[in-house]
Every structure is written in structure tokens, then in C-alpha cells.
């Protein structure tokens, strides 16, 4: 087990490093225009531009510039996303601080939606599988189809239109961040966002759960369970569901991790000041350090989640061994 963890950790470091290089190259090499000129604004001259370049290190060779950012990847106090490098080129705000402020928003959004989509997806998936080809099954599949096909932004805007604009049941979207967020939650700022995100995600889970259940229900050990005289309920839940949900845990972990890195579309539509909205906003301003910072944080979430779900999977399925 120890060997396994060491190996996984080494791979994680490798992956993060590669992501950082790619992110750096994409951002520094691709966008047109001169960052210094953009930041300087209208009234500028060569002297100011040179000063900006000096401050931001833009006059140094690319590898050197990268190295400065790379130092901010080391998870050590003082080095991790350090303010000397990771500050917004527009307003000098430390990236670390912004992330710290915004992460809770994204977290509330993600976890709330996750709770809802599991609540919706799993039971519908089970019913669809157990009552195959019935009306309930077909309804479930239609729901899944809609959820999968409807773009998040469209669904979100439709909900906003109906429930905020027309019916006035939902509050005006957007708010200033302050911790804790209870008031915002109580005000219902997250509610529509939760529902939107949950519906689109639940659809996937309905299909996954249904597929897994159907497959599991045709396994030999289910026949054995019935042959023992167990009740259909016991067979469905204790035997079939248990085996079907294991892969779902894996997917769930990765979904949540992915969203924690920034549920960009949902946050934008509902004007939630989370990580995703932050990253997009800064990207549009061609403000590199925050983009790098959020990307790395998101990558860390996913990579760590990967490891965690693998461990959880192994704890659920006794056949899996750590090699």
C-alpha cells in the first residue's frame, strides 16, 4: 500500500508539472498583443512599458519566466502561490487571497448540486433498471435525454427567466462575497444554480446507474441470491445496488473535483462569484497569474480526487489490490 501511494504521489507531481508547463506555454505564447501595453492603458510611453516589463519579468527569457511561476507550485508556506509572482496584473490583488475567498462559493455550489443530483439520479436509475421497459423506465430515459442534451447555460437562463424575471420567486443573481455564505444560501442565491447543475448532471447518473444495475442484475450471483430465497428488495439493494454503485463513486469523485475547480458556465449564468467566474474574467483580461493559479488548484483537486476515488474503490471492492 505504501509503495502504491508513493508511486501515485510521484505521478501526481509529474502530471501537475506538465500541466503547469502547458498552461504557461498556452497563455504566454498564444494570445496576440503585448501584455505590457494592455496593462499600461492608453496614456503610455516606452518608458512605462519598459518599467512594466521589468516589474512583471516579461523581459526575461521564457524559461526564466516559467521558473518564477514554477516556484509557486511547491506546496510549502511562503512558496505556494506566493504573492511575489501570483498577483493580478490588473489590480495587484494576491491570487491566493482571491482563491481563498471564492472557493467556498464554488464549494457550496458543487456540493449542493451533487447532493441533489444523487438524490434524483440514483433512484430514477434504479427504478428504470428494475422496472425495465415500463412507463417509469421510459420517463426516466426521457428525463436523462433532456438533461444530457440541454446545455447548462440554456437551462440556467430559462430558469432565471421563468423563476426570477417572470415569477419573482428567485432572488436577483449575484452577490458580494463575504464569509460565511449562509445568508446568501438562505436568500436562495444558490437554489436555481443547484437545480440547473443538478438536472444536467443527474441525467448522466441515471444512465450510468441504470446501465450498471441492468448488467449486475444479469450476473450469476444475483441468480444465486434469488435461489437462496432472499426477498426481491434485498436482492436489489444489498446485492445488485452495492455492486452497481462502486463505479458510480469513482465518477462522482471526479465530477465533484472537476466542478470544484470552477463550474464556469453555471457560475457565469447565475453571477456567482466562484473560482470559475474568476478564472474566466481574468482570462478575458489576459491576466495570467490568476489563470495559472486557478488552473493549478483545479488540477490539484482532480489529481488528488483521482487518488482518493481509487482508494475508495479498492475499499469497496475486495478484488482490487494495490500493486
Amino acid at each position: 500500500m505504501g509503495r502504491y501511494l508513493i508511486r501515485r504521489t510521484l505521478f501526481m507531481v509529474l502530471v501537475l508539472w506538465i500541466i503547469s508547463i502547458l498552461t504557461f506555454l498556452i497563455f504566454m505564447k498564444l494570445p496576440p498583443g503585448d501584455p505590457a501595453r494592455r496593462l499600461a492603458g492608453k496614456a503610455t510611453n516606452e518608458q512605462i512599458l519598459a518599467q512594466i516589463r521589468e516589474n512583471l519579468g516579461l523581459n526575461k527569457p521564457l524559461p526564466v519566466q516559467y521558473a518564477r511561476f514554477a516556484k509557486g507550485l511547491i506546496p510549502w508556506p511562503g512558496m505556494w502561490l506566493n504573492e511575489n509572482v501570483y498577483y493580478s496584473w490588473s489590480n495587484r490583488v494576491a491570487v491566493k487571497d482571491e482563491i481563498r475567498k471564492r472557493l467556498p462559493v464554488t464549494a457550496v455550489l458543487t456540493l449542493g448540486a451533487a447532493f441533489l443530483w444523487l438524490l434524483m439520479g440514483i433512484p430514477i436509475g434504479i427504478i428504470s433498471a428494475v422496472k425495465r421497459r415500463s412507463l417509469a423506465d421510459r420517463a426516466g430515459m426521457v428525463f436523462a435525454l433532456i438533461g444530457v442534451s440541454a446545455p447548462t447555460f440554456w437551462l440556467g437562463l430559462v430558469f432565471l427567466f421563468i423563476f426570477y424575471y417572470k415569477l419573482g420567486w428567485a432572488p436577483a443573481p449575484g452577490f458580494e462575497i463575504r464569509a460565511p455564505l449562509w445568508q446568501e444560501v438562505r436568500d436562495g442565491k444558490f437554489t436555481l444554480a443547484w437545480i440547473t447543475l443538478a438536472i444536467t448532471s443527474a441525467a448522466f447518473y441515471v444512465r450510468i446507474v441504470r446501465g450498471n444495475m441492468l448488467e449486475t442484475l444479469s450476473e450469476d450471483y444475483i441468480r444465486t441470491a434469488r435461489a437462496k430465497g432472499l426477498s426481491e428488495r434485498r436482492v436489489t439493494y444489498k446485492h445488485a445496488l452495492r455492486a452497481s454503485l462502486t463505479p458510480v463513486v469513482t465518477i462522482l469523485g471526479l465530477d465533484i473535483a472537476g466542478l470544484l475547480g470552477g463550474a464556469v458556465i453555471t457560475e457565469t449564468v447565475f453571477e456567482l462569484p466562484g473560482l470559475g467566474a474568476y478564472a474566466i474574467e481574468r482570462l478575458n483580461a489576459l491576466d495570467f497569474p490568476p489563470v495559472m493559479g486557478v488552473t493549478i488548484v483545479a488540477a490539484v483537486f482532480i489529481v488528488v480526487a483521482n487518488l482518493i476515488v481509487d482508494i475508495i474503490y479498492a475499499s469497496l471492492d475486495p478484488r482490487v489490490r494495490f500493486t
Partner: protein
Amino acid sequence: MPEPLLEVKDLRVHFPTDDGLVKAVDGVSFSIQPGETLGIVGESGSGKSVSSLTVMGLVTRKQADITGEVIFQGQDLLQLPVEEMRTIRGAKISMIFQDPMTSLHPYYRVGDQISEAIREHRDISKKEAFDQAVDMLDKVRISQPKQRARQYPHEFSGGMRQRAMIAMALSLNPDLLIADEPTTALDVTVQAQILDLIDKLKAEFNAAVIIITHDLGVVAEHCDNIEVMYAGKIAEYGRTDDIYYGPHHPYTWGLLNSIPHLGTETERLNPIRGLPPSLINVPPGCSFNPRCPYVFDRCVRDVPELIPEDGHHAAACHLSREDKERILHEEVLANR
């Protein structure tokens, strides 16, 4: 003649499918006495598994059209409500299946799976049920049963898993054990162990056993009576010696002639020509007629009845008794 333990009367199981009605079992009647070992022999598509699954209630009216009677200890199982059938299934009639590698739940410990079966039918504590499970593992000759009970199925070998299945099936002292191809997926030396185990436990637990298989050797060695099935019907039924030394059905002759015998120098096998029939478009009259070397006009018109010649031996074939005896002696036995 004592009361039979199980009596199946004119059982028909038809599955409606998109391609048509699959007549998996089409008029099967047989009985089994307490303590008897019955062998049901047939190839794929003969209906041997489906008949037993229907007896167990594992094929339901939601899946197929089922008619006929299955009388077990005085009750018609086909008429029983689902809940009552559940009390019988696993406790009075148990079943073990072909592939032990996939028949146990991979996530639960073996001992727990056995005690789950026990606790479903008996009101005892978890600990007591687990102890009984350990006891059963010991009875099926698994060494270190206490430790093994705490292990997961993937830690058992194929032979051990089949033993664990047998332990689970016998844990509630059933009156009837149905073994559906119990050794097909196992190595031959392990096969011998398992069949030997079933023989010994059958005596100890005083159970009747039905062995379903395609292996004529297995039924020859372990069964008192044999039923040969073809295309959803019983072709021939009788005591083991009758079937091997005095068979009266062309299909049985064909089967016996097509297997290589270890003890004899057979130069050439005599396979049955043609292929097993579709269960949707069963040939009219006797379903074996397209492949039968002795077919005559009546065979294509009338379905032959399973008429007992003496109390215990019956063959569903239109050939006269004299013809059957003649062919038996001139062709079948002479070729051995």
C-alpha cells in the same frame, strides 16, 4: 409406491420473444422420490435448465407463459404466492449452478453469504448463523473453515467456490438439491471431488438430488434414474441401467454412439446428423424427426407420447417395441 417428493405434470414454459414464442419446455412430466438421484441429460436448448429453474420459481410468470403443475410435498408450487415460494426456495429446495467463479457475490465474505441464506429462513442471531456457516464449510471439506469463512470469494479456487455453494445450498437441510451443470466449468479431478462430495452429503443430509448435465458419464456414475431431454420434451426416461444398456429412443442411441468411450476402441464416432432444432419453429410431430435415421410417416404427424413400458422405463417414440429391441441389439449394442 411411496409419495413422490416432487411431481412435475405437463410443465410448459413458453417465452414470448421478438422472434416468436420460444417453447423452452413443452410438456414435461416426471417425479422424484425422497433420497433419489435423478439425472437430467440434454444438450443446449433441450430445456433441462429451464425446467428446474421453473420448479425453483426463478422463472416467473412475468417472464414466460407457464402451465402445468409442480407438486412438491403436496403443494403446487406454481400456484403459490411469491412470498410463500420464497420460504421454500433455498430452504426446502436448493440449487447450485454451473460457474462457481461468478456465482458468489464478490463483495461479501463467503461466511456472510452462507449465513445470509440461513438467517433468511431461520430466526437466529448473526453469530449463530455464522457458526453454522463455518460448520457447513467444514462439512464440505474446506480446510480451516473458520478463517476461510472470513475470506472473499476471489480468494477461493474454483473447486472451493463450488464447495462453498454446496455448503450454502445444504445449510438449511433441504429435501431436494438441484445441481445445474455443477462440474462443467471445473477440471476433471476437481469434478470427481465435487461429485463424490455431493454423493456423500446426499446421504448425510438425506436429500434427493437432481443433476442436470450434458455429460453422459456423470449421470452414469451418480444417478439412479435418468431423463433424456430433447427440444423441450422428455425423449426417454428410466433407470440408469435401462438407459445405458437398453435404450429405446433414437436420440439416446445417437447420443451414446457419438461419445468416445475411454474403455473401448471405437474407430469412428457416429454423430447424429443435423443440428438441434429451433425452439420457435419446432418440427411437427416428433421434434427429432429431421435427424432420426429411423423416421417413418407417422413421425411427422403425431407427437409421440411418453408411454411407460414397464413401470420405470418410457420412451417417446413411435417405433414399435419389437423394432426398438431389434435396432437396439443389431445396431446400437453391436457397435459398442
